[in-house]
């Protein structure tokens, strides 16, 4: 049946996300919070994450360009970004954020730049995957 097929597909995609390390157990927490009272909780949070994280990314970009040696500021912004990422279980993004913060600590601008690119890549990759998953999951419900 269509429903079953979609459900299986959704399950498959979901598992892939976990297996490939895009998501971690925190995401399961989000799913657990989704219930009749909060039927679209996961989607809402993810949406919120992506709109919010765009802001963070913009800020870091600006800071890297305008005040590249302000590692404290960079670290602060990234700290917040990391907080959000970990809240939704964005594992790879979070890892890159941590790396970025490490470079900030030692004041390695090159490292920061490089890692930030990776952050953006992971961020974009996750967005694509998770959105398509959520779409299927929604349909499968």
């Amino acid at each position: 049946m269509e429903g079953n097929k979609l459900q299986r597909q959704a399950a498959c995609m979901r598992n892939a996300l976990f297996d490939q390390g895009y998501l971690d157990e925190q995401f399961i927490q989000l799913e657990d919070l989704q219930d009749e009272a909060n039927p679209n909780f996961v989607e809402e949070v993810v949406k919120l994450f992506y709109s919010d994280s765009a802001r963070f990314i913009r800020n870091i970009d600006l800071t890297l360009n305008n005040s590249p040696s302000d590692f404290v500021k960079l670290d602060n912004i990234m700290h917040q970004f990391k907080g959000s990422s970990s809240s939704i279980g964005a594992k790879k993004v979070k890892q890159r954020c941590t790396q970025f913060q490490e470079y900030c600590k030692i004041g390695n601008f090159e490292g920061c730049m490089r890692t930030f690119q990776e952050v953006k890549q992971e961020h974009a990759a996750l967005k694509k995957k998770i959105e398509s998953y959520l779409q299927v999951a929604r349909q499968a419900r």
Partner: protein
Amino acid sequence: MTVEEIRGDGDNFPVGLRVLAVDDDPICLKLLETLLRKCQYHVTTTSQARMALKMLRENKDRFDLVISDVHMPDMDGFKLLEYVGLEMDLPVIMLSANGDPKLVMKGVTHGACDYLVKPVRIEELRNIWQHVLRRKKCDNKNPKKSSGQVKSHQANGEGLGSPTGNADQNGKFNRKRKEDEDESEDNENDEDPSTQKKPRVVWSIELHRKFVGAVNQLGIEKAVPKRILDLMNVDGLTRENVASHLQKYRLYLKRISSAASQQAHMAAAFGVKDSPFMHHMGSLDGLGDFRTLSSARLPNVVLSPYTTTTNAMLGRLNSPSANVSLRNLSPSVGPLQPSQAQNLSSSIASLNKMNFGTQNTSLFQGIPSHLEQNATNNNSKGILGTSNFNAIDELLNGASFNPEPFDASGAFGSSNPLLSSTESFHSQLPLVNGSRRNDASLNGAYLNTDFSSGVGLVGGEVHNMNYGNNIFGSLNSSNISGNGIVSRLGRSLGQNNAISNQRMDGFVNGRSSVSGGSNLLQQNEIEKPVNELRQRSNEDSFLLEETRLNAGFVPQSYDSLDELVNAMIKREQDETVSNCEFQFDDDYAFGNGI
């Protein structure tokens, strides 16, 4: 949320807990909100700390608990934490993506009940109600003790059962506060306590001593501000003063106890040192007791200082000599002035109560000996050299120097500088005041060796002083604290009385400062000399260090219990190892040096 509503879900205590969540990150905030709702708590969220404060101030009874992020743009989370703790006395839980232990420590020392690391899991949130309950429980005793003004609340609360009474208890507490203010006899209720800004109460050593005494008398569990106030019988002191002081004291004890338990572990490793540490924990003026009670960290030892007899306390202490010391102490007090002697005895007892339990006793023991000797000498040479007193007095700064011996501190005054220091450390008020009088040098001596978290001073001293029995004649070697100190003093006395005394002054002063001001810096300063002392183990070193201490120490008035505790804890932690390592026996020719 009304009592009835809560009662409706009565069998599930945490249900309906009113939480205020503050986090500038919308995702985290949303997640937190949903998680809390899942726990069936009643949640209010805001992304602005200022808004949160505003809401809290508008109605103190509106929330049971606050969860706040550390990193916020409009206000530092720790600042918010302080405000809430001071103004509303609500439990606050810190939240952060950064789980660095230093930050966690900072949170705890600023008064947070808990520190959660993001991402927060629901299991962690399910348990936060215990912080509310714990706090309510401590505060709740008041309403029950008050006259029937809180009857309605009590009835509600009781109907709910303790767990569900959060909201009610919160309300009760607030109401109780007002009622207490109304009915308080000891306080001057001429002004409206709840609304007027009262002149800041300075918690002098004596005042603190009374406070601690009252707390001990009541027992940690039952020590509510109203009762404490009654027992203290101090004019011009309001229940609120006591309440806030009590809160800080509890925090202090908690910190000490946790630090102490760490130390205890370390102490255990060192063997004998256990008791001093335990004492530290315990002696925290009963704060530890409070804390241990609530946090169940420390065993009864902590409680014992206040609640048990001196001997019992001694018994608890690992060192049997402690008991002996105590006894010895009494007789030795003889030569001291009657008041002093009384003080000593009482202070010893109180000391026992204090962390030092045994340590104190030893101190006393040591001190009496000194005192005796010094008493006769009563010159700069003597440990008790008057100069010391002066120095100490100066150092002690704000501490009220009361010739009358405090029960606890008084005793110290005459004989146990050490004790004083430690006590003061604990109680935030420099005990030294008491000790200043008599044994400035003693304090110094003790201080020098080992300033470990206030309590540590005494304790530390004890440790270092000797496990070895370097006590002055009367002192038992086992009396760690006393012996150590005494030994030290004896040594200095024996050898370089004049210099030592003076140096001691420096030390004492330093110590006093530390005790009083209790800031890390001071402690560190003390630490250094102490450590050096260890290594050198000779009077010269001792003297040098003393000198250094003198120079280094700046008397500081004790501003906040937290500072003191902070310093103490740090000190304890830092000192733990050094204290243990400190072996006076080897270094000093203790014995009947005096």
